[in-house]
């Protein structure tokens, strides 16, 4: 589990980027927390800088949109999904558990 930040420090509509490998973006979408791979599956752009609307985040570079619940793109130009990760809150602290297929490299090299 990777500590992210205090829940109080991530208000609704905000996001934070984790410098893991690969980087992960954590969102507070109207009170619900989501974590996905930060890099847009279309081209090198950070989804944590994207436009959050409900459960969708729009890439800040080319306006590809992803459903944070599934990681699936909802429109072009992205065609591949981004990975989703588990988010837990304990004692007011947000934690992320990286998806199994990246845990070996991701968690070990987490900054």
């Amino acid at each position, binding site marked *: 589990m990777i500590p992210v930040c205090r829940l109080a420090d991530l208000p609704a509509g905000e996001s934070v980027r984790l410098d893991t490998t690969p980087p992960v973006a954590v969102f507070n979408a109207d009170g619900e927390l989501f974590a996905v791979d930060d890099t847009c599956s279309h*081209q*090198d*752009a*950070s989804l944590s*800088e*994207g*436009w959050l609307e409900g459960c969708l985040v*729009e890439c*800040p*570079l*080319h306006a590809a949109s992803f459903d944070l619940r599934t990681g699936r793109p909802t429109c*072009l*130009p992205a*065609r591949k999904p981004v990975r989703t990760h588990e988010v837990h809150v304990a004692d007011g602290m947000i934690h992320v558990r990286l998806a199994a297929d990246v845990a070996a490299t991701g968690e070990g090299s987490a900054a």
Partner: protein
Amino acid sequence: MRAVTVVGASLAGLYAARELRAQGFAGRLTVVGAEPHQPYDRPPLSKDFLTGAGDEDRAAQVDRIALTDPEELAELRAEWILGARARALDVRDRTVVLDDGRTLASDGVVVATGASARRLPGPPLAGVHTLRDLDDARALRAELTRGPRRVVVIGGGFIGAETASSCVALGHDVTVVEAAPLPLAAQLGTELALVCAGLHERGGARLLTGVGVARLRGGGVAAGAGAGAGAGAGAGGADWGRAGAEALPAVRSVEFADGRSLAADVVVVGIGATPNTGWLAGSSLAVADGVLCDDGCATALPQVVAVGDVARVGGVRAEHWTSATEQPRVAVRNLLAGRTVEAARPLPYFWSDQYGSRIQFAGRREDGDTVRILEGSPEVLDEGGFLAVYEREGRTTAAFAVGRARPFMKVRRELAAQESRAKETVV
């Protein structure tokens, strides 16, 4: 409409094919591409593609920038004729003629032939490159991975700046040469063009401005040329900077109009692009720096529409990635309707990645607009960049950001909303 031919298999061509199917066209769909590759994304060519791992195989390179995949290709049910150039358009029976003599009978034609890099006049020399397509990028990359070079980039536009930035990242000695007093001033205005000009020195490249290039001088045979390569003097017919240049003399220096010169091992020419309209000569379609279209991407013939870099839509030819992806929806709608029922005027938007900075611009700036910094500061780019807006009579006309993607996006959305409101009022 039973048969539609899309001429051009790049970004705009692929989006046109997608739109045709998405909008219910069930007939025969043919896509013709001059390059042998399936549609790929060009923006990475001057960035990651140049600096990426050199030992990556060709298939992996193409896969990384591919715009489509086998699943979508199957869904599109299109016939792809790749590595074939269109030679003519016979508007009377709406036939596209290919350079191998094949003819494609069509009820509708989407012109998406793009633009080609402008080259400098003069005999071909090894070491001189343009950067427009995948093969250009491969040829340049092969040269840049052979060890430190003196690289001169001619043209300080976005392609030039991105290429220079990639060359610096690869450890080369880089000079950018711009004929105008300041690069990008026409697009960004003096104030913010100065900020972009500053990125070069900050990033480790030299920028020479206000100097016109008179000629490129060559001599000897290119380093790394195959054994037995001749002197190559007077070699004609070879394409500039392409493979097959082994026998050409190598570029040695760039000579300027004022008599000065600069030693160079590699020259990248980034001086703009010319729309690929030659094949339309004699077709009766009006061409003037692009295929002339109305606001809905339709030519004078309702069965022919044009999209992307080759299209001059409502008087404007925009060589932007976003235009190439947004015009096809409207163009296809009008093509299938048989007349212009919708206008395509996407809000101009472009971005560039240089020396670790992400630059974004959106809107319709005009000379005389004032610049207001909303966030951050152009003086301290290392501390999070800045966001600026252009204003005219108290109204925001455009936005510009360095490293401020999120607030930029907010302004961009507001500009787009403002524009669609204005459009509704007009209609």
